[in-house]
């Protein structure tokens, strides 16, 4: 067996194991997986039929909540999970074995991407079935690449944000506090043009609004450029790269105390 196939197999086993833990950990599964879907159904039923700037509100909400779900499956999921594995000593225990940091981290990322994949699929089906909202066929390449860049960016940031967190209990509140306010001001729960020019410039340079805006373009029928928003993808890629470098350099196996 070559080194590559060994790593792939080992990573696959880690992904399977993480999936077992994730789905058996009901709170975790509920908040990362069911919450975004529930929000789509509730918000969609509540005000989806209203019109805003001539467009049905649901047409804004679907891409925004999909961004929220993607972040929930990647950023929130990874950050909370890796922090609590580290701070409870489970990672230290793993360090006693020959398992490499690379295999461990790839396994965590792989598991998050799988959750993100399931979530996106259910989301797209629900949006279509319940509200008749869908991505134009010509935008499919754009939406796939946007989801991929977004997922990669928020996986990297999720790993990076674990660095300063010093206890398992603090992981969840800190992680939520880093993005729920940002999600609100970035218009994730409503329209991507929320806020004044200054706020929009600031949030546009952060990774969340670009994800919401790029997904919004993917869902917009008749949008120019086949749904592509290269500038937003670039912002996410830059944040993702910075997050990946930080996460890799500061990765720790041992708890803070």
């Amino acid at each position, binding site marked *: 067996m070559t080194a590559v196939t060994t790593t792939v197999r080992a990573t696959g*086993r880690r992904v399977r*194991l993480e999936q077992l833990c994730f789905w058996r950990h009901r709170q975790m599964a509920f908040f990362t997986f069911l919450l975004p879907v529930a929000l789509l159904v509730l918000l969609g039923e509540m005000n989806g039929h209203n019109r805003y700037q001539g467009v049905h509100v649901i047409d804004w909400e679907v891409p925004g909540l999909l961004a929220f779900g993607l972040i929930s499956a990647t950023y929130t999921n990874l950050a909370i999970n890796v922090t609590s594995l580290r701070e409870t*000593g489970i990672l230290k*225990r793993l360090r006693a*074995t020959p398992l490499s940091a690379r295999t461990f981290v790839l396994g965590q990322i792989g598991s998050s991407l799988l959750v993100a994949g399931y979530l996106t699929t259910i989301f797209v089906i629900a949006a279509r079935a319940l509200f008749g909202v869908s991505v134009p066929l010509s935008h499919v390449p754009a939406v796939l690449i946007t989801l991929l860049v977004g997922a990669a960016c928020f996986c990297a940031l999720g790993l990076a944000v674990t660095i300063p967190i010093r206890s398992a209990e603090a992981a969840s509140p800190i992680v939520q506090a880093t993005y729920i306010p940002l999600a609100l001001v970035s218009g994730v729960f409503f329209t991507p043009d929320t806020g004044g020019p200054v706020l929009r410039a600031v949030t546009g340079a952060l990774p969340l609004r670009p994800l919401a805006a790029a997904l919004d373009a993917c869902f917009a029928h008749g949008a120019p450029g086949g749904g592509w928003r290269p500038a937003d993808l670039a912002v996410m890629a830059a944040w993702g790269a910075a997050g990946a470098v930080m996460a890799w350099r500061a990765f720790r196996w041992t708890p803070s105390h």
Partner: protein
Amino acid sequence: MGNAIEVHGMTKRYGNHEAVRGIDFEVAAGEVFCLLGPNGAGKTTTVEILEGFRSRTAGTVRVLGFDPEGQPVELRERIGIVLQECALPGELRVAELVDSYRSYYRHPLALADLLAAVDLEDDARRLVRDLSGGQRRRVDLALALAGDPELIFLDEPTTGFDPAARHRSWQAIRNLVALGKTVVLTTHYMDEAQELADRVAVVVRGRIAACDTPGRLADRQLAPVRVSFDVPGEPDLPLIEGATVHCRGERVTITTFDAEGQLDVLFRWAKRHHTRLAGLSVSPPTLEEVYLGLTGAEDGVREGVA
């Protein structure tokens, strides 16, 4: 066979506090070596340096020929570790968890053998979060054995256990010895060291105060033995030199460094007076007493050991 571990002049300093103050020892392959001492003596710091989880301030350390600092993967392949804190993912079943650890090693032991070694065959399908503390600790031991290691570190493997759980864990550890593994064990229980170890290093305030077989350590007369029995009235008991007597009701306790000599004169006295030494018990020194004895003689003993 050579030495599995060699430690020379090892120190560990945290700021102004010197947790390990220059220790030397060797562990032969196949030996069960115990670091015995009270909490805060430096036992865990010492084993965590050997495991590579902490760096040392000075000295040389060789574990299976490797410097453990930086935890080289070749070393991790050949050692098994049970940490002091038992941290396992509760959502996995016992067999799933043990099997996952097997996959991290090149030459793992069979799952069935691992579960048998720690007496958990009947619990293989249970979730880790539903196990008792003692059972989790045995799962932890199975994880440490997954890669068929030559050398196993056990940091306080039975602290907080009830007597039945301790004996099951001891049996599991004896199974390792039978397989020819080298074992490094820390404990603050004297009986655990006596039960399991070939050699015991008594660690006191960051130093090895004494290092020997359990039998010879007890023979060193670092602390007295207590001989107790019931005898009616207030008889004039024979005492050997240095022995002291203490009575509470009919219960007599004689404290002496020479238990055999004292028992000898007592038995002869009892025979002469046609009486029995009812409820006779001979208590070896407790860890606390040995510890106090060693602390008092620390500097002198240390020179004797070196």
